[in-house]
């Protein structure tokens, strides 16, 4: 299957006012290698050079890298580069099964392999995907907000479509309006958030109704307005939702853009929520303060002029 080929650069830079003696970090910056997303090449560089690195595949199947920088520095740069070929197509509604959301929820409770279209190991993953997690809690605000989308016997595919549309239309995207600790109740109260909030809200709505949902971390390719040149490094990290739709599998859905995920997206990894798959987290040792990271992402057709 041929698809769109991309060069991907994701660079995160921390600049500190005072020296940091040690930086320990963990990244989830290596894109998943999937049937509809081939990873052709990938590398991760850390500056200053770490004394120690280690890469493994985590519980969720994502490739993650540990690093330990143990000499003093005032600047830490983590750069991930990958070349990919993405052939993912957004499924048409007509191609999606009509299984009702209640049947799916009951199938998870009863471990009904026939209804769920999965095996025993799959049931474990689906049970995990209906539990609350670090950033997804079960509260009445979410239940009440979600209720109108969960009409009895409604096909799960339509529930998903409805949630995507409602989040896109009922909530405003506002950069900087939330932090990592914003709850779904706060999000609903303020009516504005960023893509991670929208993903968490949709996951919570599905899980409180017993439908398995997980969090996807990745990228979306941005296109300039007509007539404008594309700005380099201005592409975006992104987050969306993945819903278990028996007979189809995990259905990737983007509430920020009210659409199903296609070949303009690159998947880094899946987890229960943001907490499981942040692109980068770490611990630093310093007498000084932290630093706000500068993030640059460049997702361009393969062979474009390299991003500096």
């Amino acid at each position, binding site marked *: 299957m041929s698809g769109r080929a991309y060069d991907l650069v994701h660079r995160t830079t*921390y600049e500190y006012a005072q020296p940091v*003696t*040690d930086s*320990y970090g*963990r990244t989830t910056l290596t894109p998943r290698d999937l049937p509809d997303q081939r990873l052709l090449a990938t590398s991760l560089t850390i500056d200053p050079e770490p004394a*120690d690195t*280690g890469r493994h595949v*985590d*519980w*969720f199947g994502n490739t993650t890298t*540990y690093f*330990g920088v*143990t000499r003093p520095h005032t600047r830490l740069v983590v750069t991930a580069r990958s070349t990919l070929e993405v052939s993912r197509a957004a499924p048409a509604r007509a191609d999606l099964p009509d299984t009702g959301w209640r049947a799916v929820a009951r199938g998870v*409770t009863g471990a009904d392999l026939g209804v769920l279209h999965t095996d025993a190991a799959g049931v*474990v993953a689906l*049970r*995990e995907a209906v*539990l*609350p997690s670090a950033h997804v809690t079960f509260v009445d605000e979410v239940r009440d907000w979600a209720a109108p989308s969960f009409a009895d016997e409604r096909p799960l595919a339509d529930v998903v479509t409805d949630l995507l549309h409602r989040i*896109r239309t009922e909530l405003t*995207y506002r950069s900087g*309006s*939330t*932090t*990592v600790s914003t709850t779904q109740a706060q999000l609903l109260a303020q009516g504005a958030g*960023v*893509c*991670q909030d929208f993903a968490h809200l949709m996951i919570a709505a599905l899980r409180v109704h017993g439908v398995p949902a997980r969090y996807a971390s990745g*990228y*979306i*390719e*941005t*296109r300039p*307005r007509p007539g404008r040149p594309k700005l380099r490094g*201005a592409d*975006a*990290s992104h*987050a969306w939702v993945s819903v278990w739709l028996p007979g189809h599998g995990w259905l990737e859905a983007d509430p*920020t*853009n*009210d*659409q199903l995920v296609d070949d*303009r997206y690159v998947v880094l990894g899946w987890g229960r929520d943001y907490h*499981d798959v*942040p*692109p*980068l*987290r*770490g*611990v*630093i*040792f*310093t*007498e000084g*303060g*932290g630093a*706000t*990271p500068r*993030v640059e*992402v460049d997702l361009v057709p393969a062979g474009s002029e390299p991003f500096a």
Partner: protein
Amino acid sequence: MTDLLSSPRPLGDGTIAHRPDWTWLPPGAAPTDADLTRAARQAEQLLAGHGVTYGAEAVDGDRHWRLDPLPVVVDEPEWARLEAALVQRAELLDAVLHDLYGPRRLLDDRILPPSTVLAHPGFLRAVDGLRLPGGRELVLTATDLVRDASGGWCVVADRTQAPSGAGYAMEDRRVTAQVLAPVYRQASIARLGPFFHALRKALREVAPPTAGDEPRAVLLSPGPASETAFDQAYLASMLGLPLVEGSDLVVRAGRLYLQGIDGLEPVDVVLRRVDGEWCDPLDLRAGSRLGVPGLVHAVRQGTVSVVNPLGTSVLENPALLGYLPRLARAVLDQDLTLPSAPTWWCGEERALRHVLARLDRLVVKPVVHGPSTTTVLGWRLTTAEREQLAARITAEPWRWVGQELVGPDVEPADAGPRAAVMRAFAVAHAGSYTVMSGGLARVADDHVVSSSAVGALAKDVWVLASQPTAPVGALREDADAGVGRAGAYGISPRAAENLYWMGRYAERAEDGVRVLRAVADRWDDYHRTPDSAGGQALAVLLEALTPAALPDGGEPVSVHPDTEHIGPRVPALRDLLLDQRTPGSVARAVRRLAAAAATVRDQLSTDTFGPLARIERTLRDERARVRVRQQAGDVLDVGPVPPGSVTAGLRPTLDRVLESLLAISGIAAEGLTRDVGWHLLDAGRRLERAQRLVAVLRAALVEHRPADVEELLLESVLLASESAITYRRRHQSRTDVARVLDLLVHDRTNPRSLAFTLDRLHADLESVPAPRSAAQRDHLLQGVAELVAELDTVVVGNEVSDDGRRVRLADALESILWRLREASDEIERVHFVRPTPSRALDDLWGSTYGEPSEGGAL
């Protein structure tokens, strides 16, 4: 007294006697009630003397470990059955752990519902697939057991995270054996030692292949504020492991190291008492200050083994209790021998209905305890509370279990505890599990002995043995087969610093007591005659030696409104002894001494804690006495304290405190090996002594005074410096400044002299490795030594300037004091560099996350 745990003695009518039974002893050997009362009192004293505590730090609070000397007695056949059942249980739990962090074949509704594990915060996905060398995952396990109504053992909880209590059990045995010595000697009771021996060997067996022949192990503690800090420190010293905290450790190039006082020292095995989730702020709980960033990585690299491995607390989920019989059949193909209290996990529909219907009769437990979720006794709730609980359970049923209360049927007429639990311990060793032949029993008057058992009493557990267990020779044979201490010095900069400050506070307290004694004597003699030579000397002493005891202002005040008597200000000398808030008080120094000692308990002789406890008790009792007197109106309504009562009761208290302080310094001098830690302790003491001596000389002797006043002053200075007797023996004539200075500054035969003290300080510092340049430290101390050598006592003693001051003495002492203070800072800089603070990398939340595309049309 009820006896709820000993081997049951069925009565004829089918019930069980819950009274102590001594029939196993030879006739006439049973202790009488009077014996037991006396034993209880002695036990209390011994435990206080050993500094055995439980619970968090509290001033004057009761956090003493309490022990009922009446032991739990289990006969040999019953124990043999229990032991086998505990081994089976440990093997089962170990196998479950292997599966949960491996193939996960057991996660199936027909065996173990997956959400019991998936929803438990102790299930650490970050360590999935990691294995401990040696074939075991569960190395150390503890089992909380109760007796059921028919007298059988029943498990109420498995402790698999980082079981506490083995140290307490050992201490309980020591104390019980001592206070019930006549009984203990006549009985053949199984020893606890083999368990600790097996634990040492177990730590060796799990060491990574990189460890070499002598694996180096540490005990990782959450710190002295931990509830079971005593247990941790005691275990560390029994196993010979350094007691370390997370900030003492660091991961470098895929290995774990102890940050020793002389650089990094590799660590191969970590016996942890920090909960798994807190052990690594990078891969586990972000923000944890109890762990080490990169520890999970080092474990993954196979260079360090953590015991118990990270993630074992998933087995503490009470929901598992209900599934263990099924698991035993699936995993071991055996029936589970040891029953658990009937437990229902609400994550299953039927169990949920069962629990909700019987909320008023069940113990309701969260699968994991949290700030707002703790164990609830259903029958204690009001109807409204029960409804609230039911709603919480229904909303998130997988978070809860209902458990039946299991316990003996105690006759209402029986006085004594109503609930009792015994913790048994097992350690993986040589292909099986070694069970401690004994355990930690706790009894309470309530229905349930909760883990934080406020008011619970501990008991020793005696397992009757028909013959002595494990001959001594066999034990000694492989006594070396354990693990070694990590590092050449095995002492972290944190421990080193605490030892140094221990030395300083001990000396500060001792000096404070001597000064108070000297001043109090003068007060008693002269406070009524302020114009006499003695009265003037007293005024100088108060100003010079105990300024903190004086009220602010500095003007003499009337001490009695009726008489208009003007005299020296009434000093709060008692505050300077008793009040921890008064700067420079003895009580404050003692408190800090105790706090420092608590953090380095594993470095000290246990004998240190007896005198320390006695000092604290003496001060506490005296505080209480003073309070009572004040409340009784003794000193109220008369305005200021009557001058006569300033020193009332002071002298005996000072004497008692000094006696214990001397015991502590004696133990340090005679009872500790001369290792790095000792030299730092001694250095702290010497530096403190030098500083205080110089400060006293400066405050008392710089001002020139009439000869009769000065003589009294000098005597007090000699007394406060513990040199009065020496002086009198050497000099029959009147006391003079030059000679006093000679004895206190130059005399190298006087252990209180500055020269002697500086020599010792120098020698101590020579014996301590200096990871950073000590040039400045040595330069300052060299300067002090030169100033001391150059000090001509006759000249500086006699040369008085026009304004009545000994200017050259003042200058010299000032220079010395300044250098000593600078040297102290330098010592801290050179030896005790504190770990750099850590913080989480700022998160990437919303940094440049995807804005929605224009109108949704990309």
